């Protein structure tokens, strides 16, 4: 019984994660400039990947796999904002202009 509940729950998490990943990808294409696109990608690696890892965590059998998934989650949470910040900082220093409402898409 609990197994079925876990299965369904992890399925829901996986599907939700996949939807967030898809939304991030669509946002990457639709948003108008570099900075706004970074926001869209933030959805994929903050929530999309997180939900998928949580969903997988509910399906693991051994503790070793579980620990590895938790560590991946931890490193995702640590490295993705750092990398994003460095990218945005570099763009800012290079003088990439911020898109304002009414500007053409870049």
């Amino acid at each position, binding site marked *: 019984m609990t197994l079925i509940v876990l299965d369904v729950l992890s399925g829901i998490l996986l599907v939700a994660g996949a939807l967030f990943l898809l939304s991030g990808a669509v946002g990457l294409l639709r948003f108008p400039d570099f900075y706004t696109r970074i926001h*869209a990608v933030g959805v994929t690696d903050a929530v999309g990947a997180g939900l998928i890892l949580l969903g997988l965590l509910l399906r693991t059998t051994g503790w070793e796999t579980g620990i590895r998934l938790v*560590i991946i989650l931890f490193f995702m949470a640590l490295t993705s904002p750092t990398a994003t910040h460095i990218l945005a900082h570099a763009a800012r220093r290079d003088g990439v202009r911020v898109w304002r409402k009414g500007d053409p898409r870049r």
Partner: protein
Amino acid sequence: MTQLNSENPLAERRRRPWVNAVRSLLRMAPVPALFWLALSGHYDPLLLTLGAVSVVVVCWLIRRSGLAHHGLTLPFALRLPRYCLWLSGQVFITACVVVRKVWSPRMDLRPVVEPTPAADLSERSLVVYANSITLTPGTLSLAVHDDSIEVHSLKAADIDALDEGAMLSRVRRTEARR
């Protein structure tokens, strides 16, 4: 992964370089060692030796890059999970807002760049705060200054919410007094 000695570390190091190197190695080693053990799952002599060597190399790199005093302290590490839980909730809520923008036929984006105050934070809290801002979709830290963080946001309301300081006060509480 501990704090720096309060005495002048350079003079200390010159006097007894080996003793200090070994001592700081012992202080830093447990975390990477546990990490290696948890990840490898192999316990034959050859791999254990290689693991020990890699731990020593990692500690040497940490020491060489001058990051030895940037580690976690135990009370901070204990308070961190609570903050992480709260942050995950925030990330989820803001992500839903961004996703709605992505799928709406006429995207109504009004991006703004503004500084948000972040005064009197220790270096570690500043890193946590700036990373939290970046991690929540919709806000992005562009540059970190001593007393403020420059934030790019999809709408001005997000920066106003940061200025109100709910996240900042939680970061402060996580740091707290030692």
